[in-house]
């Protein structure tokens, strides 16, 4: 058996591999599910109806997908430029923090103005959160993987401090949570009596915008050039550092928007458990999407479906909801293997007689 690079990668392969990988992940996940003592077919049926069984369950899935689209875009855009932003989690909290600061009445603005100001401030906070590590990278060569990752913890602890102190809701019965955002400034709901909100629309608009920027503009050209081959980009006169900086700002802003959308669209106030790792899951989303901005939307929906479906399956079947995490992890691994399969092929060849090596 030997592995050879493929000379040409077909379109069908590129499209079919992620889908097949997802199925492979579900197939492998069948093993632990059966170990947990559940009927596999019934489990997957529960999982399916847990997402597509009713308008409500579907809207729950979309609610879950919304922050993942934002963080997925943040990762996809940065990774396109080979800027390894692992800090979407922290940038999300920065976005959430500033939207709470602005949205809880410190500014006396009409609601029509307040919502855009919240969105803008949250995005800017996220942008700053990524601009700082990028500055350290460009100026001092500090590895952004390390700095962005560690900043996540710094920011989270800072948030906890604020929630115990300056931002603590005086009406919160002692819970470490912020005051709620004023009702009028909240992002409008999309459906009555359901949690899905217009943050989803904003997320999809962002995906289309990022797609357009990357594929149709000089800006996106530069970003792609820097990511694909920074040496050649520099040789051709593309300002590598400035392009990286711009990417950092946009990537951080997208992650910040995830925080805005969770606070102003869903929760209404900030707590230190606002995000169950949306920033990290965003990396999975981006990888699953092959770093394509439009693919991020689909990948986020897939992962949100797995989460929501597995949640409802575990409730119905009495198995652990950690199985959802397992399916997500398995799908990332499957996609990585699948990506390998698109680039290489395995040739089976018989060993020859007399072979002693």
């Amino acid at each position, binding site marked *: 058996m*030997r592995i050879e690079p493929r*000379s*040409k990668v077909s379109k069908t392969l590129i499209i079919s591999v992620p889908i097949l990988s997802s199925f492979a992940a579900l197939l492998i996940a069948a093993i632990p599910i059966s170990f947990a003592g559940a009927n596999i077919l019934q489990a997957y049926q529960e999982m399916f109806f847990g997402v597509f069984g009713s308008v409500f369950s579907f809207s729950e899935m979309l609610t879950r997908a919304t922050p993942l689209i934002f963080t997925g875009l943040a990762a996809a855009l940065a990774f396109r430029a080979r800027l390894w932003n692992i800090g979407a989690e922290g940038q999300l909290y920065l976005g959430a923090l500033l939207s709470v600061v602005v949205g809880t009445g410190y500014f006396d603005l009409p609601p029509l103005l307040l919502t855009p100001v919240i969105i803008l401030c949250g995005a800017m906070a996220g942008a700053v959160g990524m601009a700082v590590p990028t500055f350290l990278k460009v100026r001092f060569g500090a590895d952004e993987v390390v700095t962005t990752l560690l900043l996540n913890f710094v920011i989270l602890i800072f948030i906890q401090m604020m929630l115990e102190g300056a931002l603590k809701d005086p009406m919160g019965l002692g819970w470490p949570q912020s005051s709620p955002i004023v009702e009028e400034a909240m992002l409008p709901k999309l459906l009555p009596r359901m949690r899905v909100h217009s943050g989803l629309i904003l997320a999809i608009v962002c995906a289309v915008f990022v797609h357009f920027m990357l594929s*149709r*503009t*000089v*800006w996106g*050209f*530069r970003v*792609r*050039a820097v990511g*694909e*081959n920074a*040496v*050649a*980009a*520099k*040789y*051709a*006169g*593309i*300002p590598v550092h400035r392009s990286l900086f711009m990417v950092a700002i946009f990537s951080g802003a997208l992650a910040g928007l995830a925080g805005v959308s969770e606070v102003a669209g869903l929760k209404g106030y900030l707590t230190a458990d606002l995000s169950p790792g949306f920033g990290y899951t965003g990396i999975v989303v981006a990888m699953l999407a092959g770093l394509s901005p439009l693919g991020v939307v689909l990948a986020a929906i897939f992962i949100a479906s797995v989460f929501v479906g597995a949640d409802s399956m575990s409730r119905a079947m009495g198995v652990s909801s950690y199985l959802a995490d397992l399916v997500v992890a398995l799908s990332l691994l499957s996609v990585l293997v699948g990506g390998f399969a698109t680039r290489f092929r395995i040739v089976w*060849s018989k060993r*020859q007689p*007399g*072979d*002693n*090596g």
Partner: protein
Amino acid sequence: MGKVLALKGLSKRFGSVQANEAIDLDLNKGEVLALLGENGSGKTTLMNMLFGHYLPDTGSIDVADRQGSLQPLTLGHPQISLTKGIGMVHQHFTLAENLNALDNIVLGTEPLISFKRNTGSALKKLEKIMHETGLFAPLDVSVGKLSVGERQRIEILKALYRDVRILVLDEPTAVLTPQEADDLFDNINTMAKSGLSVIFISHKLREVLSFSQRIVVLRQGKKVGELVTNKTNESEIAHLMVGGGVKSAERETCTPGKAVLQLNQVSITGRSKRDSLFDQSLEARAHEILGIAGVSGNGQAALASLIAGLEVPENGSILIDSSEIEKPTPKKMIGAGVGRIPEDRHHEGIIGTMNLADNLIIEKLDDQEIQNFGILKRSKIKTNAAHLCESYDVRGPGVDAEARLFSGGNIQKMILARVFEQNPKLILANQPTRGLDMGASAEVRRRLLDARKNGAAILLISEDLDEVLALSDRILVMHDGNLIPAETRDRAQIGLLMAGTAA
């Protein structure tokens, strides 16, 4: 003399490319065989099959064992090829720079776990080899500090230490001065006399004719000729290699015009002396090709990055058309009318995963011709690319295909199209024909001569002394970061300057 190697009907296909087709080749004991062919003719593929890196589609290989009788070789396993006495010295060295020569040589021959290293016997064996072959190299200095010639000797010693009986050398002289190359071939001949069989891959006709006993010529994956060296001549071989006559570029006489590029006492301190320039001045004039000869790694990289705008000089000034370029950047240099052909076209010249059309516009992204308020004019970019491909004869899978899918020659033509389309005043051509086949090389040289005729100043940096001699109006030799004007056109004299031994 008995046969030591017989390749029988070897074929290898990569996708739609037939890299090797039914190639037969014999090698005798103590013979020096030259394997000749243009780039892409299948030389390296053939040797990689011999060495076990590739598995042939059809065919077989017989190798003589220690007693001299031919035995079939198990294909596709480098380790087995090695134990059967086949060694290969690659064009790009595979030495660990932080280890000394001895460690590099014995690396992989020692048991993985042992309590005591037996360096004494290794040293003894190596000293014996060095005395027999005349290949001397310092064994206790870390390889990173050694010259290219010394490293190459270590690579060869590494193969000999493994008791190879068949040694394959892939373009061994690409990085050597003419004198070093001659020394190397003297050593090879000594080794051949004591029974080693050598195959060397080359495309330099001169050394093939002087140092081999037999020549095998490949073209488009097929063996097109097998010649006895002292019964053939340069034109017969060239004819076989390209399958027809190659017309060399006509060099018209031009009167040099005003100075386009002036460097005034420019210094760059790189990581080593070899990446540096010391207080150097030069002037390149319109209608003139200024050739920079020298063994690579003597400061050419520093000079090239200076003119490409990648380095800011520590002191001194760069003037283009008599106006100083302060704090040069690639963009400023392009703006000042400098066209740049990079040394490493795959790494610096193109973005392999972007398509051909995108690669053609990468140096003029601010141009209103291809964008409107920052939005790319995609159809314009495509028609521009199609047009350039036609006028520069870029052939390949099309303008929408990723640039990496094009052959080296076509990638170079693509870079030429990008550079010459802007009508540059100054052209930096850094190793412009390295690794190209004869047809593509001739095309590059023709374009450079055309640009000279049209009034451009050209700075030609090349390791290929024959190329520098053929194209240049003036020659500077680079050694250890210094530029020395060559008053002569004599190969041997220039060779001495390249080695830094002549005053």
